[in-house]
């Protein structure tokens, strides 16, 4: 244990690592603050720049972008009523009214403090539970992993959009695309059609960039720039500690909501923010103030939103199963360095995990510093118009896609995936299940076939023990809940809170 920790310190303690987290948080905050750029897009664009870094350094940079992005979205939500990220839309409810009253600085401060506290709680939860879960998962064999992945994909498909069926279709498309290349067991060709570039399968990064950045750019061609809410000049005074302490109960409640929802694959920031907000309103002495500029509302929304950031890493690190698009990208970063998160990584590469934990803890502190600076400066950055921003983003996409393998074919893959993503955007089919299924596809198939090898082809191996049964049961339960809420939504005409993520 002690030996592991001291090795971890050696891995972690370098100027590079300490700098890179700060840079990550800074980039993330800027990207998060820019309406039209989402956090997954930011992480995807940052990924190619991490290829040549050490694994720990590269992953810490991406984590920094992730955490910064979650916070950055609230800056513009408060100042100009335009959420930088979907998860920040809940912050608008009370943040913008506060800004209109000339108390923008107060709202921004409360959002920042709430974000930092929630981030810290979430990180501690990650450190406490990931190792525990990984030890438990050491008992998993191929059938258990197969059922676990089926369960995760079901949830991801269900909560990524209003319709479970569309989510599943999206996931199937991702699974199908993942089969392109050489067969895992027999080494024969699958869907190559004589094109040798396809032999090693489609590369993850061009697919990712194509799905998450190109459709936005194409869509921009048809839309007019949205007029943002007016930004008032005076920011007012900051929040005092006493003011923040009043919201602390909601912040802590929101952090735990974030941690729990974050640890379940697929749910993510937006539902956590809304749930935390409605809980804060329900428990407040003056619920009628909510929506009119109640600092507690801002705090609750931000706490829920940032509370997921550490927790989403629990299933990724302990089980190797990403819960949302960003952790799927981070999984991709692990794989580029030849690492596979999951129980084996804990068993064989513990110092590396500890080094990551140290960096993650440091990110909460960076978030505070960057946030304090950001309040003044970055609200301007957010005003870069999309007509200048999107050509820049496209150029970054092209360079990034090429740099993966020094291969022009990857740029073509990216463009084609962009068209697929654009079609899905138009048909209102969520792309998140597609990407996550694409990443998990080989793992799912591999576990499926290994199970059948073990059982000589008998399907009974998929119900061989209580763990398998548990995951099947959870899958059935989530399908039931999702279908029921879809039928209810049809009757009332309102979508449920859980499915507004995506």
């Amino acid at each position, binding site marked *: 244990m002690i030996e592991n920790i001291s090795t971890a310190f050696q891995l972690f303690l370098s100027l590079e690592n300490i700098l890179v987290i700060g840079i990550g948080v800074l980039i993330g905050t800027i990207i998060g603050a820019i309406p039209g750029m989402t956090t997954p897009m930011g992480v995807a664009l940052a990924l*190619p*720049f991490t290829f*040549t870094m050490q694994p720990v350094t590269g992953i810490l940079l991406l984590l920094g972008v992730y955490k910064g992005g979650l916070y950055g979205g609230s800056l513009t939500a408060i100042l100009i009523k335009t959420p930088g990220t979907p998860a920040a839309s809940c912050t608008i409810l009370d943040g913008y009214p506060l800004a209109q009253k000339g108390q923008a600085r107060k709202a921004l401060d409360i959002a920042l403090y709430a974000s930092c506290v929630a981030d810290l709680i979430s990180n501690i939860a990650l450190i406490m539970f990931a190792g525990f879960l990984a030890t438990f998962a050491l008992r998993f064999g191929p059938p258990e992993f197969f059922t676990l992945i089926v369960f995760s994909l079901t949830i991801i498909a269900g909560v990524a959009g*209003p*319709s479970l*069926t*569309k989510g*599943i*279709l999206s996931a*199937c498309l991702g*699974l*199908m695309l993942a*089969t392109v290349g050489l*067969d895992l*067991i*027999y080494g*024969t*060709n*699958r*869907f190559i059609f004589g094109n040798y570039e396809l032999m090693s399968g489609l590369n993850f990064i061009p697919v990712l960039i194509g799905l998450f950045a190109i459709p936005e*750019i*194409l869509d*921009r*061609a048809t*839309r*007019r720039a949205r007029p943002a809410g007016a930004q008032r000049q005076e920011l007012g005074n900051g929040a005092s500690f006493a003011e923040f302490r009043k919201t602390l109960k909601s912040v802590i409640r929101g952090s735990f909501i974030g941690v729990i929802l974050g640890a379940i694959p697929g749910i993510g920031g937006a539902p956590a923010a809304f749930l935390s907000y409605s809980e804060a309103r329900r428990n407040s002495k003056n619920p009628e103030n909510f929506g009119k500029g109640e600092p507690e509302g801002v705090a609750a929304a931000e706490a829920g939103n940032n509370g997921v950031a550490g927790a989403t890493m629990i299933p990724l690190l302990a089980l190797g199963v990403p819960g949302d698009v960003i952790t799927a990208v981070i999984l991709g970063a692990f794989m580029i360095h030849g690492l596979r998160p999951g129980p084996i990584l804990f068993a064989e590469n513990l110092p590396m995990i500890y080094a990551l934990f140290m960096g993650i803890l440091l990110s909460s502190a960076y978030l505070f510093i960057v946030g304090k600076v950001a309040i003044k400066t970055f609200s301007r950055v957010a005003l870069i118009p999309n*007509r*200048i921003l*999107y*050509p*820049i983003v*496209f*150029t*970054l996409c*092209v*360079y990034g896609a*090429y*740099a993966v393998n*020094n291969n*022009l074919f990857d*740029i*073509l893959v990216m*463009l084609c995936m*962009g*068209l697929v993503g*654009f079609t899905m955007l138009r*048909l*209102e*089919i969520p792309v998140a299940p597609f990407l996550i299924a694409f990443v998990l596809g080989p793992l799912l198939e591999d576990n499926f*076939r290994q199970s*059948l*090898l073990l059982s000589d*082809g008998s399907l009974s191996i998929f119900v061989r023990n209580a763990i398998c049964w548990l995951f099947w049961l959870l899958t059935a339960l989530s399908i039931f809940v999702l279908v029921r809420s*879809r*039928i209810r*939504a*049809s009757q009332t005409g*309102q*979508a449920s809170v859980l499915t*507004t993520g995506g």
Partner: protein
Amino acid sequence: MDQSKKKDLFAGALFLVLGILTLIVLIPVGVDSPGSVEISALSPEFWPRVIAMAVVVVALCLLAESYFLKVPNLDEDEDAEADAAYKLDTLPGTLRTVILIFALFLFYFALTTLGVVASSIVLMLAMMLFFGERKWYYIVPISIILPILLYLFFLHIAGVPMPLGIFETLG
């Protein structure tokens, strides 16, 4: 019938056709199976077949869903009218998208001869103009400096030389 319902019916039909095509054309043509496979479930074509069948079944569910259930309102686009006015002022939205897609693929073919840097400069210029930016003191410097800076970054820091095409001698 409202817009969302139409989209869902179309999506369901599209996936149904894709699933059936995969089953009867793509898998038999595209997947090479070894001569003898002891357990049929381990054959390379088994897994794609399972997914394609799932697509067919779920696509049928989507068709039923869009036929029987109402689509809940998420965020209705409040500015639909303003958007329509905008489209009348400029080119119609669909045409603009088609032009952009065409330009992006043209860009890909330009890459092979002109290299990444030169084509990016031209594309960025064109794209900013296309999206409606008119201030040349933004357009010109950004579209020239950024591709060159990125080229230098990838060359010196990441060790990836971007292809320069016919400008290879300049690099």
